[in-house]
């Protein structure tokens, strides 16, 4: 690695899930780069492989269910796919943290918030050798950091005593409690109401900025991505189809899929909604041979059906995978 500003680089990652009689070829060459302190968004429809991509970074997909035929995930110069179990645990417990979509399922219902958060401290680099009272102070500080009043009371609560927004903030607190370099947020606001979502996003944004962490933000909402990220990767059917700085994506949208997505978003100004995108995502067991978006694309030509377009730079770091721009 020559550029030491790059913290994570995914190169041509392919991931197949094993299913009955074959493979479901979900990821088909994902390329993604995250710099230090950068906020990167991954946007796409449901079933595009957004979550699979980030799960493969942490290697938290059950072992016998998948196969990686090709690709590299380079974190700080080391390939995660070639790491030993011990090294991998080091990454999971001290380097990268993750927030899940459903806060209700991410917390264990039979332990109090305090017990669960203490566990994180107890196995972390910074908290391992500290006394119990010092560890508790760290937990309380973390709860305070996510703007929850009265942390002592929350410490003894069970997850079911908290509302959805509170639970998600506890999840954020757990993720930022110890010094991490990269945070992965998998649709942190989707299960919540607009006003609560807004609060959660703001909290997340403030903390990430304060600690100068890198953030990978998964979302299906272009609006959320626009507010929170520095650069956006639009994913479709297991490939990144467009990747650029956030403002650039919204000003000069190039890929037909991104254009379709933008048109489908209802606008505040009114004027009805455009047609959206015809069809649905492909069957991953028998994916289209060429560009995976070709069957739904208005611009598709013979070439699109037969060969897969590469992600190419079209100027000033704006990358698009399409033959017909």
């Amino acid at each position, binding site marked *: 690695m020559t550029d030491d500003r790059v913290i994570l680089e995914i190169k041509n990652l392919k991931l197949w899930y094993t299913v009955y009689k074959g493979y479901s070829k979900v990821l088909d060459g994902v390329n993604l780069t995250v710099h230090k302190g950068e906020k990167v968004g991954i946007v796409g429809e449901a079933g595009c492989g957004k979550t699979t991509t980030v799960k493969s970074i942490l290697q938290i997909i059950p072992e016998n269910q998948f196969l990686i035929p090709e690709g590299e995930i380079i974190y700080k110069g080391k390939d995660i796919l070639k790491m030993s179990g011990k090294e991998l645990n080091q990454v999971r417990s001290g380097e990268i943290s993750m927030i899940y979509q459903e806060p209700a399922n991410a917390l264990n219902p039979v332990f109090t918030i305090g017990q669960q958060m203490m566990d994180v401290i107890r196995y972390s680099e910074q908290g391992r050798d500290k006394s119990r009272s010092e560890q508790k102070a760290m937990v309380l500080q973390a709860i305070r950091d996510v703007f929850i009043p009265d942390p002592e009371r929350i410490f003894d609560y069970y997850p079911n005593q908290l509302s959805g927004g*509170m639970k998600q903030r506890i999840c954020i607190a757990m993720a930022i409690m110890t010094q991490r370099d990269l945070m992965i947020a998998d649709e942190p606001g989707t299960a919540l*109401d607009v*006003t609560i979502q807004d609060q959660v996003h703001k909290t997340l944004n403030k903390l990430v900025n304060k600690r100068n962490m890198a953030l990978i933000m998964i979302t*299906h909402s272009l*609006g959320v991505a626009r507010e929170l990220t520095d650069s956006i990767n639009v994913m479709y059917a297991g490939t990144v189809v467009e990747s650029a700085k956030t403002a650039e994506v919204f000003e000069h949208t190039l890929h037909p899929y991104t254009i379709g997505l933008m048109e*489908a*978003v209802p606008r*505040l100004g009114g004027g009805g*909604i455009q047609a959206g995108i015809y069809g649905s995502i492909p069957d991953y067991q028998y994916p289209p041979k060429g560009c995976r978006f070709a069957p739904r694309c208005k611009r598709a030509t013979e070439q699109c059906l037969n060969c897969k377009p590469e992600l190419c730079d079209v100027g000033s770091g704006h990358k698009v995978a399409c033959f017909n721009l």
Partner: protein
Amino acid sequence: MDDIIMKIENLKQYFPVNKKGPDGKPLFVKAVDDVSLEIKRGEVIGLVGESGSGKSTIAYSVIGMYRPTSGRIYFEGRDVNEKRKRSLQLKKDLQIVFQDPGSSMNPHQTIREILELPLNIHKIAVGKEEREQKLRELLKMVELPESYLYKVPGAIGGGERQMVAIARALACEPKFLILDEPTSALDVSIQAKIINMLLKIQKEKNLTFLFITHDLSLMRNIATRVAILYLGRISELAPAEEFFYRPEHPYTQMLISAIPVISEEEERLKPKRVEISGEIPSPVNLPPGCSFHLRCPSVMNLCSTLDPEMIKLDENHSARCHLCKQRFEQSCE
């Protein structure tokens, strides 16, 4: 004289919780607390609110899944709950599409069986050939190929399933359709398709829609009038476009400012960023005074003691807020 198809008068829907308050009286969840609404024929009326604000409960009371605790619902001038059982004709005229198409259909039935049930019950298109034609027509209306008749819900995608649910609701030719967050479980690209189709059908058949959603920007594009609900009460009622250049209620301003948008023009349409604090309180122990005063950025002393009343700001626009009332009175003087 506008043709009013549905009139909801002081609807209250309380559910008992197995608890007693400090004064020994049983406690209730006040899911819907004194809602009045008039819906004109051919209108698309939107109900918007956070979860727990009672939007779905209103829909379920209208469709007859609950009997109201108090208040009346009139459909075409007649009280829908006057008898213990509703007439078949009334059931035919009011139909509903649920939020989750995966759980609102029997997974063992084919699409054909699903679509035939309302036709059998309401004795529509009884003859064999008529029936075939009707089924084809229904599928054509929601833009699905005929081969789908022989599939089961599990074999088709979420968007297509919702299309079938819509076709099922339209099978018995209703006059009034309730849509309970029909697209919130779906992607934007599919949402756009379903919404456009619904609007087309609405125009063709002159249907009246009661559209429930939590997405204000979607409402802006499809509804004629929007009611914002907060804790079982309407806090503001206005034509859809008016919300965006003249939101009166602080809660509405808060909701609009929280919408993530995708362009600069839209950013300018939003009111100045309102700092959002707190969460929706429990509907069992409602705060005294205005139910919103705990989260309101412009709260006054009056708000914590006196419950504001709904006031008419102009013909179509009304709000339930002390501040709006004061402003309104000042402008009148």
